[in-house]
């Protein structure tokens, strides 16, 4: 029994054994790691607080995703997206990067964006929507910039055209 449990535990770490969360579409197996989040998390608790903690981050991500789906520069790119998964993984990623008590379980930025053919203009358009969502949540500019500074270098992995 103990060996069985040990096997089950080690299986849970291998990519192939990751269950698909309810309401989400299956994805090809990948290795789960916080390093997939694409940056080291901030350690200044003031930033996480300024974002309104987990609830504030959840609202920001929901608002950003809604803006993206009606932004004519971006909507079509997300036409076939799994928004349940996208919202979940974005919330995890932002919470993790802002020093919150979360783990990022999504894919690395490079592999999750590689096939989408994203341009610099599209990258900037997405960031604009994030800024509007942070404004709507009342996150001060200075604090917004702490997050944006972590995301900006990800352009190297996300933009392919």
């Amino acid at each position, binding site marked *: 029994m103990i060996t069985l449990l040990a096997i089950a535990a080690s299986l849970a770490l291998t990519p192939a054994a990751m269950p698909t969360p309810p309401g989400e579409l299956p994805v090809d197996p990948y290795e789960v790691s916080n390093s997939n989040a694409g940056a080291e998390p901030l350690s200044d608790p003031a930033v996480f607080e300024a974002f309104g903690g987990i609830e504030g981050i959840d609202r920001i991500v929901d608002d950003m995703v809604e803006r993206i789906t009606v932004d004519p520069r971006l909507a*079509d*790119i*997300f*036409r*076939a*997206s799994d928004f349940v998964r996208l919202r979940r993984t974005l919330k995890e990623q932002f919470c993790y990067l802002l020093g919150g008590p979360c783990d990022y379980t999504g894919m690395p930025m490079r592999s999750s964006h590689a*096939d*989408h*053919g994203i341009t610099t203009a599209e990258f900037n358009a997405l960031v604009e929507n994030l800024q509007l969502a942070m404004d709507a949540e009342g996150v001060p500019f200075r604090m917004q910039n702490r997050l944006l500074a972590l995301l900006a270098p990800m352009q190297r992995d996300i933009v392919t*055209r």
Partner: protein
Amino acid sequence: MIRFLLPLALAVLAPGHASASPLEVQVTDASGAPLANAVITLPAPDGFDPERHRFQWPMMMEQQRLQFVPHVLVVPRGAQVEFPNRDRVRHHVYSFSGSNAFELELYGREEARLVGFGHPGAVVLGCNIHDAMIGYIRVVETPYAAMTGADGVAAIADAPEGPLTVTVWHPYATSADGTATLALAEGDSAGRTAQISLNIRAPR
């Protein structure tokens, strides 16, 4: 049944002309290895109108797992070809092939787009986003067309009898228009598989 009776009736009315028999052609490269995706065609009968012709296979070029499926599609001139995107990522399909050139932005799972091909010849397909995606459409003006499978063999069930010129096209053929021809005398191919070889270059 009626489709079958008509050619029979014609054969009776015009002895020595237009009776049909199966034709099998095997296409190989210069080393004798079978070539898949080669298209064989025979000259069309007089008065044939490709715009009204329908082949047995779907007029459809899917994008699936970042590939064109099928790799080669044969269509009659004038065909409207569906380009369903089965992927969840967008594709930007284009062709620079002369008068059949076109461009199509297809977003994830977008499945209702048609492209018309009004000119005979080979259409090379690419995707602006995924360089490795390459496909071909062979636009023909004959009802007698077939594509080789993995064994290099293509079959035309109702080939006209009499001397025939078989044209073979392959996307990687080195000849200027990608084709080679094979002349068959009357009865040459009866009961056997005609052979033709093509010089090809490595796919890019």
